[in-house]
């Protein structure tokens, strides 16, 4: 167990070298420590996990996991804190029927908002769905409880990668929830271009019909990848500035729009080219207007799977009153049938080995034309991960993005 001072002491030196080396992203050669200790860059002394610098989080002595073999809490209301409409309530209802409890789902719109509310200490939730990049903050603030693996045997259903992910070695605090890629979605019946990262810039004749995601990481990453730069956690300000310029150029070329409504805009034809998340497009059939077949919707990621890949996690918050139920909940969602049930509502898949494109098509959950939205283990290994940036670089990214999206 590493004490905070040790972390700071060890981290500080490595932090500088890490930052100077511009580490991060796939493809860069390894540097500092390997698994099991502080390796690579850190922010304020807290390590920044990278695929090449995996992190095993410390477990504080006053934040131990619960004992094994306990019974689920009685007469409990499971408090879930989640993104808006990011879980199938039907599945949650089934869980509660099985374990004889009630549930309440509170939602948030941005991770910043969620962390702010959690930080007040006034709210007590059991289940939370953080993105990978905020785990460090949660561990440091002792807001999450380490897991007792004996309650979660279904982890066997998940991809082996997730029993030792780089962001949480030994899955001490997290189980994986959804996994998704960022690609480009387009209307095959309206657009006559070959999809590529350059597609939006080629769409001058589709002025007003091109949109990017309202996300500072995704937009700048797109511009970086278009220029052939796959270091999507770059701290190099000239690279970031060049990306910003490309985005500004796009704006004057095609009157680009910036929103997160890819899942409605492409089906209803308001946008013909939209940077999109795989999970959003998987459910396109639910948003097609009457008479338009879902086959006109396409989703593209590069054939070599060199695209942004993210996954969300489920954690048990320390302030929650029902830790046993929380563990059982995580176990429940790692079951294949429940995951498929969740997928039918959500469109975002979980990284379970049984969830293959063939299975999804067989279960009529996905049209064959959209199998590109399914994430395979090879994506996870070949893809680029958008991860936590050091503060100064993050401000650089944010300013570039704000300048593009709010100020033209």
């Amino acid at each position, binding site marked *: 167990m590493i004490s905070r001072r040790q972390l700071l002491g060890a981290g500080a030196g490595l932090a500088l070298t890490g930052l100077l080396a511009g580490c991060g992203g796939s493809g860069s050669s390894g540097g500092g420590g390997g698994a099991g200790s502080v390796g690579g860059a850190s*922010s*304020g002394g*807290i390590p920044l996990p990278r695929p090449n610098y995996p992190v095993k989080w410390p477990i504080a002595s006053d934040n131990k996991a619960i004992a094994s073999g306990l019974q689920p809490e009685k007469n409990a209301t499971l408090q879930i804190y989640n993104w808006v409409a990011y879980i199938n309530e039907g599945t949650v209802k089934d869980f509660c029927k099985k374990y004889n409890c009630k549930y309440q789902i509170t939602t948030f719109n*941005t991770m*910043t*908002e969620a*962390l*702010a509310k959690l*930080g007040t200490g006034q709210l007590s939730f059991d289940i939370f769905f953080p993105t990978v990049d905020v785990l460090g*903050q949660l561990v*440091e*603030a002792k807001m999450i409880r380490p897991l007792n693996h004996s309650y979660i045997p279904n982890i066997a259903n998940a991809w082996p990668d997730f029993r030792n992910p780089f962001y949480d070695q030994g899955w001490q605090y997290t189980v994986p929830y959804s996994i998704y890629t960022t690609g480009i979605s387009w209307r095959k019946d309206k657009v006559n271009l070959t999809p590529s990262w350059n597609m939006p810039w080629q769409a001058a004749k589709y*002025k*007003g*019909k091109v*949109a990017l995601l*309202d996300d*500072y990481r995704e937009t700048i990453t797109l511009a970086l990848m278009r220029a052939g730069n796959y270091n999507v956690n770059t701290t190099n300000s000239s690279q970031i*500035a060049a990306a*910003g310029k490309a985005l500004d150029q796009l*704006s004057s070329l095609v*009157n*680009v*729009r*910036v*929103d997160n409504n890819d899942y409605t805009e492409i089906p*209803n*034809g*308001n946008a013909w080219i939209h940077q999109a998340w795989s999970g959003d497009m998987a459910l396109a059939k639910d948003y097609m207007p009457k008479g338009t077949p879902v086959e006109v919707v396409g989703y593209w990621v590069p054939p070599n799977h060199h695209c942004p890949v993210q996954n969300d996690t489920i954690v048990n918050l320390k302030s929650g009153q029902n830790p046993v139920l929380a563990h059982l909940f995580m176990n429940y969602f790692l079951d294949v049938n429940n995951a498929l049930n969740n997928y039918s509502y959500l469109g975002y898949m979980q990284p379970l080995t049984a969830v293959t494109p063939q299975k999804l098509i067989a279960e009529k959950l996905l049209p064959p034309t959209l199998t590109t939205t399914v994430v395979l283990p090879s994506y996870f290994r070949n893809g680029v991960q958008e991860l936590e940036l050091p*503060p100064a670089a*993050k*401000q650089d990214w*944010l*300013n570039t993005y*704000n*300048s*593009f*999206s*709010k*100020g*033209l």
Partner: protein
Amino acid sequence: MNRSATNRRRERWLWIALAAPGAIWLIVLFVVPFYAMLAVAGGSVNPFFETAIPTWNPLHWSSANLSAVWHNIAGSGAFIGPPALRTLIYTAAASAISLAIAYPVAYFVSRYAGRRKALFLVLLIAPFWVSYMMRMLAWIDLLQQGGFVNSAMSLVGLPGGTDWLGGKSITVILGLVYGYIPYLILVLYAGLDRIDTSLLEAARDLGLGRWRTFWRVTVPLSKPTIIAGAFITVLPMIGDYFTNQLLSAAPNTTMIGNAIEGQLLSPGQTGQGAVLALMLLVVLLIPMIYYAVSTARASLEFG
């Protein structure tokens, strides 16, 4: 009128007692939070959680956020200029259009509706009962390329292929009008109702035609109402950000509210967002003071 000094003092206490509860609420829940925002603007950022740390003591206020924002306004890569200019243009246009529509409607309902006044009021208030968001989503449906508006336009011979939702200023302006006009109508109605019919009759008897009566009697009498109505409509419009988000979402139609929202809610930039919002407030001080002064003056004129 023979009111002794004691009576006058007792009266004074009555006014103070009436105003006190509201005043206290205002001070505790507005002035104090406002000071908190000043403290955030002059404050720092928690480097780890990226939350804003307010600096309560004015002597320790830092100018880091201010210089960052100034850089965004006037430095290289500045981006605040265009949205600020656009905000002025959009709100001026939207306010003019709103007044042009709202005044006749309010005038009609307050003066000529007669027995059907209740019906009209219900119809005017109906939009309030349905969420603003939902009405905007309905407009998105109407404005789509194959939607009702385009079909209707081609029916009457106008070009029916406009892409209303593709980042157009006119859509944002009309969206602003649609969103804020119910408020304007209601405020105008409340004031126009008050104008004494006998004054208008007198004007007519003196031979003033319809239009002259309107311009030389009605409008001047309704001046305080118009000012209140304009105030109530224009100022929130300036800080609006969701109209653009919903109806356009394009960087080339953003308003200053979008810039403020972006920074207030970005990790580590809350302080800068606060500075930007405070700058906007300084600009708005001018119409604010004008409103205060004109209300005070009108109060003396009328009463």
